């Protein structure tokens, strides 16, 4: 198992370089010049060049990438052009808030999704199933920013149950978590339901009934355990999606976090900061997928064996 984990982690290295190159190029291909937002109107071209040299913007793209990469590997993401602080520090400052939102939304997606899926599978073909299924359909089609606005309108503005925006206390987390996680709930519920129904048709389930094992035990101890294998790999892939959702949701709710940081940096063409944020987010997506893979392998004794 540990060599399997090692192999999966080693496989990250090429992915990391591809991702970092993409992030780097993407930023340099979008039009706009960060020096513009830094210079006051009417500054001299000499000062302009001086600034460009200071941030290395006068060198070739390739050189810029090598220099940047060298620093990234020592966790030095450079200095924010606009805010004048190290990118690493800015990320570290905003990360906890994003992790709280992302983590809670992830937990919400998993638990609510699995519960809804188990219920829909248990009552397959009845009205309970069809209402859960239509809920799922609705949940998976609403974009999270739109859902966020809708939730704000209903629960914060009309009902006044929770604050409209900000990040003070747990109550301010409720709406962002729902907005971020609902799409995940829908997906997890759908995968759980489908795989529970499919596994419920396998022969070993008939044998469990022939042993006199109770239905609830068959469902939760046997079928669900199998059904969770695909659910977990979906959840691993979902980590990235949830982070993406968190970005827009953070902006809508005016919460501090990587998302808000990234959007601001983008507007200001703050290259180093944008690169740092994007790289962080991409790595989180890759790590999420790997964690999903490993968890999936750990759950299944056959894979555990094969991956020794």
């Amino acid at each position, binding site marked *: 198992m540990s060599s399997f984990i090692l192999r999966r982690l080693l496989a990250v290295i090429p992915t990391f370089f591809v991702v970092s190159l993409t992030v780097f190029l993407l930023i340099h291909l979008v039009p706009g010049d960060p020096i513009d937002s830094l210079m006051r109107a009417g500054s001299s071209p000499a000062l302009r060049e001086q600034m460009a040299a200071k941030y290395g913007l006068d060198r070739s793209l390739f050189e810029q990438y090598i220099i940047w990469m060298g620093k990234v590997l020592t966790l030095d993401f450079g200095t924010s052009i606009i805010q004048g602080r190290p990118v690493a520090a800015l990320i570290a400052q905003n990360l906890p808030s994003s992790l709280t939102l992302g983590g809670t939304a992830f937990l919400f997606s998993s638990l609510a999704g699995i519960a809804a899926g188990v219920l829909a599978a248990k009552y397959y073909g009845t009205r309970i199933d069809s209402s859960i299924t239509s809920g799922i359909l609705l949940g998976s089609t609403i974009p999270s920013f739109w859902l966020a606005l809708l939730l704000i309108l209903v629960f914060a503005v009309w009902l006044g149950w929770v604050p409209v925006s900000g990040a003070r206390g747990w109550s301010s987390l409720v709406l962002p978590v729902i907005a971020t996680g609902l799409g995940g709930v829908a997906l997890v519920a759908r995968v759980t339901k489908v795989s529970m129904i499919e596994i419920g048709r396998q022969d070993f389930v008939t044998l469990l009934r022939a042993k*006199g094992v109770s239905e609830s035990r068959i469902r939760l101890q046997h079928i669900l355990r199998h059904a969770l294998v695909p659910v977990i790999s979906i959840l691993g892939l979902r980590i990235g999606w949830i982070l993406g959702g968190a970005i827009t949701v953070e902006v809508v709710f005016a919460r501090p976090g990587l998302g808000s940081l990234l959007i601001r940096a983008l507007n200001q063409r703050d290259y180093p900061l944008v690169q740092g944020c994007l790289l962080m987010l991409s790595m989180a997506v890759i790590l999420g997928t790997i964690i999903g893979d490993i968890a999936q392998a750990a759950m299944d*004794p056959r894979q555990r064996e094969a991956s020794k």
Partner: protein
Amino acid sequence: MLNQIRHSADHDAILSVENLSIDIESKRGVLHVVRGVSFHVNAGDRIGVVGESGCGKSTLALAIMRLLAPGAAPVGGSIQFLGTDLLALSETEMRRLRGNEIGMVFQDPAASLNPMMTAGRQVGETIEAHKGVSRKISASAAVDMMRSVKIPEPAVRAGQYPHQFSGGMRQRIVIAMGTANTPKLIIADEPTTALDVTVQAQVIELLEKMNTDTGSSIVFISHNIALVSEFCSRVVVMYAGRIVEEGSTSDIFSRPYHPYTSALIKSVPPLDERLADGLVPIEGRPPNLASKQVGCAFAARCSSKIEKCTQSSPPLVAMGPRKVACWVTGAHS
């Protein structure tokens, strides 16, 4: 009064199936898969149910367990187990019987086990489901059970997963699971079909031992009449959802009456020698189960048929100690 007489007459019957019919709703319409089947299993009996693939053997077994797939249901008749009508029991009452009073062993041991749970847990689960014992007690009982089905090093093997066992060992686990509570009736549906010949013999020996040690009655389902003749004292021959012949194994083997039984015996290789020489496959195919049968279901394939055979269906009638459903070779002739 009449009831009492009947009751005393049947008093050793563990299982009585009376005039049972089962329909399956399929895409091709309603299939009449079991058509008025009656048979009895007495305490300690080893009764074989044989017939070609698709004649309704598994459907019959699952009906007794009340585990028919959705779409399949009894449409007539009764199944009495120790005097209680199984078809009238609630699902909870039925669950208490399954794995406890009636155990079942399935054909494919690879598909019968949960790949994600250890063998010991799966055997122990049968005990836990009925005896209300702690997990610790059921775990040690499971090891004992695995020892009794001759799994070497049962304490170690109990902690292993199904994929770590050979096919024969898996079938032993399946047998241990089905019989952990020493049920009064064991239904074994082709328990050896997926296994090679030497392992087959070991599994048969195991079932034999269970029958003699605990007195459990066994219904042994197989399409291999040679295997059934080795193991069973009585045989029920099924064709297209009906019983066409029933009697003691020695009678039926030495002198089959029904043309289908004779054909079946000729078509199956003897157990040990795999001589293909003397084998005569049965020509033709069983009838479509969707249609209502007029006349004998075997008529289209039968070389002894007479005019009457295509006009009305021969009932199963007693001929001394056995029963035959045939216009020519049965009691009608």
